[in-house]
């Protein structure tokens, strides 16, 4: 077969050489992209004059929709693109757009948004972007430090991982009874978001203690959860972090680990590990959720095709408050967006560190979008590609790092 291919190709090359010219690759011309508003939006409303971004690793193109909510791309390199568009509204504005009556605070934040990941655009066929409405919640995951670092003897040091949760609203929010979870990260993947649009399959779930008003987060404040050990790690690794003032430490009970730090016990886990098992190179899909139901009554599932090993507890996506999709930066081709565990309504994008296997003292952190009334507000477009930035040398509760400032 290879010899036949060579022969055919040789004849083509011979003819080409006699013609002495090569066919040049061409741009796509006049590609039409239409937007489709959610069904509950009034018919006379159009998605006009809104920014639509097409981007990939090499290029970013920004366009504006016309009066009908469509756009024509005059010239585009055929490639795989992520298409993103977002219209931010207050709750009051959103209620004026919808055809039905909904109950929503006037000062709530609502996004009419769409992110289409890895869309192959290799021809000039029309594209349609289905938009969806996302009501943003008060708590967001602001920092995920999972890479670990090198200690003073240049050995891998991974016990300094942490997650930080931020109150992005103007009201006090209590974490009592809420859950911090980590999606499964098996290789090959067990439950991808693309195949499971309504559930996230978790490896670990921690439950915040309290009776309802024991653990407040003030507006513009945050809590730090030490994934393994809440102590000053800089004494072992100069480049590490000081978690001795963390708010929670993932452990079985109070008194263990750092006795001064409150325990965040494992509530459900597919393994016997008692710490929050962030993987140093990724992937780590971390999310917050809340529910009135008994989580332990939710079913658990083995990986597809298996009847033994880890069992993953299934969490409905409508319970999710916020999540961030962290993907592994593969050595050969970088992060693979097809391996997302979180649905686009939770995180339409992904974040990652620069190294392929960790130990680089890097974290992914949410940007600051504005400063006002003596506090910061973090960016939340429901897309960690836009909302997160890579930080070298993370510091808990630090929102003054210039790399986070993304003033609008």
């Amino acid at each position, binding site marked *: 077969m290879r010899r036949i291919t*060579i022969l055919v*190709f*040789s004849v083509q*090359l*011979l003819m*080409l*050489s006699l013609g*002495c010219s*090569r*066919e*040049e*690759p061409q*741009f796509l011309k006049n590609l039409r992209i239409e937007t489709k508003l959610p069904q509950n939006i009034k018919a006379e409303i159009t998605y006009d004059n809104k920014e639509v971004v097409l981007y990939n*690793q*090499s290029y970013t193109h920004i366009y504006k929709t016309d009066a009908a909510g469509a756009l024509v791309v005059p010239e585009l*390199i*055929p*490639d*795989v693109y992520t298409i993103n568009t977002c219209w931010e509204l207050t709750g009051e504005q959103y209620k004026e757009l919808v055809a039905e009556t909904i109950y929503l605070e006037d000062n709530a934040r609502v996004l009419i948004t769409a992110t289409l990941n890895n869309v*192959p655009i*290799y021809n000039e066929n029309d594209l349609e972007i289905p938009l969806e409405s996302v009501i943003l919640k008060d708590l967001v995951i602001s920092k995920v430090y999972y890479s670990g670092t*090198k200690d003073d003897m*240049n050995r891998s040091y991974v016990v300094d991982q942490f997650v930080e949760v931020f109150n992005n609203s103007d009201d006090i929010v209590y974490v009592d009874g809420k859950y911090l979870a980590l999606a499964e990260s098996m290789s*090959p993947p067990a439950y991808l978001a693309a195949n499971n649009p309504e559930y996230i399959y978790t490896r670990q779930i921690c439950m915040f203690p309290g009776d309802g008003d024991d653990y407040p987060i003030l507006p513009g404040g945050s809590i730090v959860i030490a994934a393994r050990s809440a102590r000053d790690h800089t004494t072992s690794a100069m480049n590490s972090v000081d978690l001795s003032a963390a708010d929670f430490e993932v452990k079985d009970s109070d008194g263990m680990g750092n006795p001064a730090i409150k325990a965040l016990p494992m509530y459900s886990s597919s393994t016997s590990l008692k710490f929050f098992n962030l993987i140093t190179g990724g992937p780590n899909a971390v999310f917050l959720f809340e529910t009135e139901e008994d989580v332990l009554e939710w079913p658990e599932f083995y990986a*597809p*095709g*298996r009847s033994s090993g880890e069992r993953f507890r299934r969490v409905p996506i409508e319970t999710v408050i916020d999540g961030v999709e962290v993907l592994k*930066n593969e*050595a*050969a*081709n*970088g992060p*693979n967006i*097809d391996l997302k565990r979180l649905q686009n309504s939770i995180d339409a994008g992904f974040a990652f560190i*620069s*190294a*392929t*296997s*960790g*130990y*680089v003292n890097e974290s992914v952190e949410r940007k600051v979008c504005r400063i006002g009334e003596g506090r910061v507000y973090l960016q939340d477009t429901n897309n960690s590609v836009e909302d997160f930035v890579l930080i070298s040398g993370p510091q808990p509760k630090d929102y003054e790092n210039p790399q986070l400032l993304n003033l609008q």
Partner: protein
Amino acid sequence: MNRSFLLLFFLLIIQPGYSQQADTISEVPSINCREMQVLMQQWLHSDNAAGLAFSNVYRGGLTTFENFYSSGNHHRVQEGSALNGIKFYSEGYSSFNDKLFARGHFKFSKYIEEDRAWSDVVNTYNGNPYIYGSSVRGNYDHQLFDLSLKVYSAAIGSFNYGFTIDYQVGDISRQRDPRTRTYMLNYSAIPSVTYSISEKSRLGLNAYYKYGKERMPNISTVQTDPNLQYYTFTGLHNVMGRVGGYKAFQRQFISDAVGGALQYNFVNQNVKLLLSAGGDLLWQETLGDKKQSPGSYNSYGFNITANLIHSSTGFVHNALLVAKYNNGGANEFRQTLFTERDTLTGVSTEYWVTDYVYKNRYVVETFDVQFSWKSIALKPNSQERKWSVGATSAFQSFENIYYLPKSEYAASKLIAGINGTMLLLDRGNHNLEISAFAQGAYSLNVLLDLESDTEVAEFILGPDFEFHSRNTIEIGGSLTYTFPLRVPKMNAMTGYARLYGENLFANKSYGWLAFGLAIGLLTF
């Protein structure tokens, strides 16, 4: 097969063979005379081995061992700043019987290239763009074995037949993290035939097939540097660098080439003219882990050679024109990794599927024309060289274009020079010859038009633009001393020692210095 091949070469080279003719005039073989005979063997400028039957070279093997060193700052970014090594070369003419003859050569080189970066491949320039490398400068250890055997027949009716086998194997080994080892294998088979139209005119035809493989199976490190990046290129300034990107990275290039040429040879008492025109086609696959492929490369080329030798009383004049044109194109792929899991066995299979092909996204053109003329004064009643003068000129150009969007990189230069040799000492079999040359290169045009700034634009193409912009002057010379060697119970031999040096001067105090010492033997 390899062992037999090597044995054949050593037999050709070491043992006195039954060559085309014995040198019955000298008591010791003459290197000067041999060089003149090789000059007259015009068909060596073509791939047609059958034509070697039309001019004789005295029997014997020529063996050379050379130690060389060169260094300087006038070099491209992806080249080293010094080369230091040894070469061994041996060639011999022999015969199997009175109808079948052979010419073979064996070359071995081993050298260190210092302070090289951004390329871990054999052929960095004007070829397959899917190269790879580290930005950290390091030393590279090169080894190359090159064997060639040309077998040719005496006339069978009006036809002469010939066959050439070439075999090259080598490796490049990087001596600093990230450590790569690239293995190279090339072999080619070239059948040929000539037809004598008349006593004065001959036609020749040869075809060839060449297989090439270059493989870099893995990358290792002896230190753990979490910030170490590794880069993969896709043409011109387009590159992807990843921290830890060397882990699980592997790549190989597999190429097949076919080609051929036509020759015409005119010979009379005073004039010998050889014209050759040929072409070739190349197709090259680029494969990585799990047969992932960033793209493929193909090229076609044309070449023309014209070699004129005019002999008059006491003089030989030689004019040589060689022109080569090459046009290459790389098709870039967009691929998706698929994973299939057999639920019965639990076995997962991963494979890459090509979703889209950018045809000719990267195109390269090179054009090279060289013309040289030399007049050689012969010793009285001899075919040996007394002195010579010559001139050379050349035009070289290349162009690289990357489409979507378009970026371009091109340069051309004109080269002209003069050269000469003279026998300073000619006492029987003891000769001392001096040679010298001077050559200037003038940059005609350099163009670098990139649609975006990347690390490659800043660290490679920008400095290389400066390299191609520089005008240069090169001067050099050598001293060669030949002397008879008589060893009891062995045929007489001729030994030689050659000391050479050359320096290239370029604008703004850039330069390149090279010198070396070669010693050798010519045997009967």
